[in-house]
């Protein structure tokens, strides 16, 4: 247990002395996972809402697909993204393998189904009459969708938090598509794996604690927004 105490001590020393490498890694983790969450929120909420509000043949199959996607293993995503981004692969001309952009792409693929699945359930869970009432009041279809999304604000923000939680903590895809390059594509999780491999358990523990603090801070902010008193 000494290692935990050492780790906590180390984490605070690194943070208080504003260790440039650790701050850089932390900032990069936040930027990458923040961007991925943002992109997945766009795609996830819109597609999730569309599927929730429409009836079409094969709908159940699509919903099953989305729900399965919520459990996509990051390493599988990492492998597929790596193969696609290889120089001699289908998207090789982009030349973005082993860059932060590649990590954003992989993490977006991981987070999108999570956000989509929860959004779908959230919108579908709204009373069916609500939709009719809004339309009866003379709203256009777009206004109706917007009102429903606002009505489901609580679970939708939960969806975003779940998506963020999924990607900030993920290591399999980040290490494969990012390459854990020092000062460039090294994020908190990949740095933790590397330091563990090096036997620097105290630094690994310190990085883990910083990761937990970061996740907590972001979720606290989102929770604050989510739990504001709803005016009615």
């Amino acid at each position: 247990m000494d290692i935990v105490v050492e780790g906590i001590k180390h984490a605070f020393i690194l943070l208080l002395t504003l260790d440039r490498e650790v701050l850089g890694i932390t900032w990069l983790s936040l930027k990458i996972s923040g961007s991925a969450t943002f992109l997945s929120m766009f795609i996830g909420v819109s597609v999730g809402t569309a599927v929730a509000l429409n009836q079409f043949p094969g709908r159940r199959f699509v919903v099953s697909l989305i729900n399965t996607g919520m459990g996509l293993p990051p390493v599988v995503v990492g492998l597929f993204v790596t193969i696609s981004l290889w120089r001699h692969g289908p998207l090789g001309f982009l030349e973005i393998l082993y860059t932060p952009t590649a990590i954003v792409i992989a993490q977006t693929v991981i987070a999108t189904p999570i956000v989509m699945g929860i959004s779908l359930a959230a919108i579908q869970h709204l009373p069916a009459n609500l939709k009719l009432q809004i339309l009866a009041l003379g709203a256009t279809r777009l206004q109706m969708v917007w009102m429903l999304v606002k009505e489901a604000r609580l679970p939708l923000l939960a969806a975003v938090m779940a998506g963020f939680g999924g990607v900030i903590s993920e290591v399999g895809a980040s290490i494969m598509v990012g390459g854990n390059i020092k000062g460039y594509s090294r994020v908190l999780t990949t740095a933790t794996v590397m330091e563990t491999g090096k036997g620097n358990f105290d630094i690994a523990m310190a990085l883990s604690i910083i990761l937990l603090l970061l996740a907590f801070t972001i979720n606290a902010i989102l929770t604050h927004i989510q739990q504001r008193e709803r005016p009615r």
Partner: protein
Amino acid sequence: MKKSQRASNGLWIALLCLFMLSPGLSAARPAQRNIILSTTTSTQDSGLLDVLIPIFEKKTGYFVKTIAVGSGQAMAMGQKGEADVLLVHSPAAEKKFIAEGYGVNRRIIMHNDFVIVGPPSDRAGIKGVKSAAEAFKKIAAANVIFMSRGDNSGTHAKEKVIWKAAGITPGGQKWHQETGLGMGQTLAVAAEKKTYTLADRGTYLALKKNLGLDILTEGDAILLNIYHVIEVNPLKWPRVNAAGAKAFADFMVSKQTQKIIETFGVEKFGSPLFFPDAGKKEEALGK
């Protein structure tokens, strides 16, 4: 209504800010600036590359993307043209790699050695045994667990060479377990389970303080661990950064770099982790 609008606006602005700060999207460097160096984990885990690469980058203006994997995977990447230059330690596989035309200009960089480590209780009684093959025979005979990397790394390749020399086929045996992990993690597993394993001296020295494993067999010529640099053949893969690969390989054999390798680790571990060998013949080592 107003308040909730403000709340959602706030959220949008916050997320938009995050997105605008998103990295990489604008950081497209010219392709020739990037060099993908595919290397074994030991060069990274020992910290050697953290010292060498900044010097190289400063000197030449190249940007090196170090991908630390096992030697087997490193060569697989080279074979597909997904790496420009390799720094590996699996001589037999390297020779095959060159013979098949995937790489050119294989040059020797440095060496250190492998050691057979195990718990101080040493149930197989290999302490002080000079021959590695003899030690492996004793481990097999004593039916005590040997923890193998099992990942096609240079260390794993060396382990197989020693088993062969001992005339033993370890595959499928109960006492032969594979972790499929890197050197550091395999050492940690071996330490936790109090088993034997083969490790490169550099990684062992770097982790020693947490392990409780002792060096039991060392010094046999078969345990020599030689690192070579190989440039991926640009004729096979036109997208390979041949100029960058050559610049890096030249840098690795340069006098200045060899000097740094010679003294690297002395301060921290009391002895060097690697011995520079540029220009020497592979066959002349260990004699």
